[in-house]
């Protein structure tokens, strides 16, 4: 083999090794989530990054997956596309690695038995990232998780002040208007946490809902820096990423009755 070909082969091998390593979770999976199977039929083909994440979660049958997703500026409303071609009978780990190989500017980590946190590479260390805003305390008692995830500024005074700084001597009134997926009611008391940690904690708190209503589906969240019209305006939303049999998974005891 000629030296040029050897160099090319070495470079390709190195690149493959690097992209494979980059597609691994950023931190060890303490919960074994990466080994969970994806049993169902999954939508394939050209999808947006967030659609593809949802597709994989919806195709699960014996487990479920939730997400906390931070989209990079510029990735909405024109979302980056991926080719989703999951291997039959694959695992969550294989599915995510396949996706993140295609979007190496993102990374992810497992934060609970069900939840995966997704963010632009380096975002967690970015002091200007609003999700890294640290708050001394966060208390909610019996609030709809979906409302907290879509309108966190209603529950986090420091975030609200950052987004709408008060003018001395002028009253403020806040209107919150928009769709939510209410989700289970959550009670949380957290200290010295970031906005990202709060949102992830809310998502994790929805994993074992105590209620029994139609809206007690575990919630995923998504953060965007722009609106759907392209206006620069931080905004939050929820994702429904559950398989069709989610009630059996969330309330296994009740489903067997």
């Amino acid at each position, binding site marked *: 083999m000629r030296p040029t070909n050897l160099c090319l082969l070495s470079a390709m091998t190195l690149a493959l090794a690097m992209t494979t390593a980059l597609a691994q979770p950023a931190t060890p999976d303490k919960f074994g989530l990466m080994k969970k199977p994806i049993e169902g*039929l*999954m*939508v*394939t*083909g050209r*999808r*947006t990054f967030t*659609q593809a994440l*949802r*597709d994989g979660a*919806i195709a699960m049958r014996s487990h479920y997956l939730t997400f906390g997703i931070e989209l990079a500026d510029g990735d909405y409303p024109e979302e980056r596309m991926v080719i989703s071609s*999951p291997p*039959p009978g694959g695992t969550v780990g294989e599915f995510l690695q396949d996706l993140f190989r295609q979007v190496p500017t993102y990374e992810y980590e497992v934060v609970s038995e069900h939840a995966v946190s997704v963010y632009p590479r380096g975002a967690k260390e970015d002091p200007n990232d609003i999700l890294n805003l640290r708050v001394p305390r966060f208390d909610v008692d019996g609030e709809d998780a*979906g*409302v907290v995830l*879509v*309108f966190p*500024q*209603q529950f986090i005074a420091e975030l609200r002040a950052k*987004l*709408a700084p*008060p*003018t001395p001597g*002028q*009253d*403020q*009134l*806040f*209107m*919150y*208007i*928009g*769709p*939510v*997926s*209410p989700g289970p009611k959550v009670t949380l008391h957290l200290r010295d946490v970031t906005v990202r940690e709060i949102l992830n904690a809310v998502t994790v708190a929805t994993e074992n809902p105590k209620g029994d209503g*139609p*809206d007690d*589906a575990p919630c995923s969240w998504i953060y965007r820096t722009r*609106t*759907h*019209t392209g206006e620069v305006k931080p*905004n*939050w*939303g*929820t*994702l*429904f*990423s*559950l398989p069709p049999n*989610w009630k059996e998974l969330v309330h296994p005891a009740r489903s067997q009755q």
Partner: protein
Amino acid sequence: MRNLIQLGLMIAAALLSVAPLSGQCQMIYNVSVYADASVSSDLSTIYAYSSGADNSTTCNCTHSNYQATLTVYAPNGSKVSRTQPGMQSSDSMATNDLMGTYDAVAQQALNCSCFGQVLATASVPARVSPTVTIPAGISYVLYGPDAVGYNLVQAIGTPPGGQYAWSVTPANRLSFSNGLMPGVAQLQANTPSAYQNDTVLTANYTYSGTAAVPATTSTTVTVYRYLTQGSYNPISFSPPTYGYFGNVYYSVYAQPGQLLVLASGLSVIESVSQTSSNYSGAAVTFQGNAQTNSSGNIVDYLAVKSNNPLPANLKIINDQEIFVEGLYVRDNTVTFSNSTATIGNNGPYN
């Protein structure tokens, strides 16, 4: 029990007459043979049968040594053959997935004491071709990329292992992408149906170069058109926080067919703009986005919150447009007072 496909029945008869001498018995041969063949439902086997009958007028002759022979010829020239004493025979042949026309040839032989061996022959073709069905169909196709997971349709070809190809009429109505499993198509709506069931999906299936008769199913390509609304019953915040909050539930309807959409995970976004306000301070609007909930509803959150008591005459009017999967489905005039929000529906209504 194997389900057999009746392919045909061929009857042949040998009718011969021998000119009688005056005043003598007239010798008439009347030997019939029937051939029949069928194909197993999985196309793996050809089953062939033969049956003979001798209704000859034999006069002083005798007929004996009846033998029924059945031969099945494959399209590639190979054959199986079986001879049994008597008037009936049967045989089978494995197709080994070889498509084409097989021939079952039945031959009935007998010995006549007067004239020697007599033969009667019949044959019947047995066509082995792949089949395709669409067992469940799909009654409607939902619009939008988040709905693709609901828009799955499956064709089943026999024998398995062939190639599927889908088409639609009218051609621009929707597009296909292959699903994870062979025969499963993901449908993405492009243009809505003019009326219900005006769209025909066709599944073509080819196995080993032989095409099956295509299977078809009718469907309706729908688009989200309007919402119906539940009530808004706000809950007040407790001082030192002032204002109220609550949810409004909407059902999503698609046309044609006034279909109540029960799909969760459809994208819901809103455009909200303030039309007028008599609030003297700073009125800040926060918006969010979500997807249809687990019941397929849009749940819209409306809240007003302040650290100061709301003015008694508070009146802030907003225009609210709601979109499902990017399609405009509702325009509201939302008026916030000091105790509740009222929602004026500006349509669309159907």
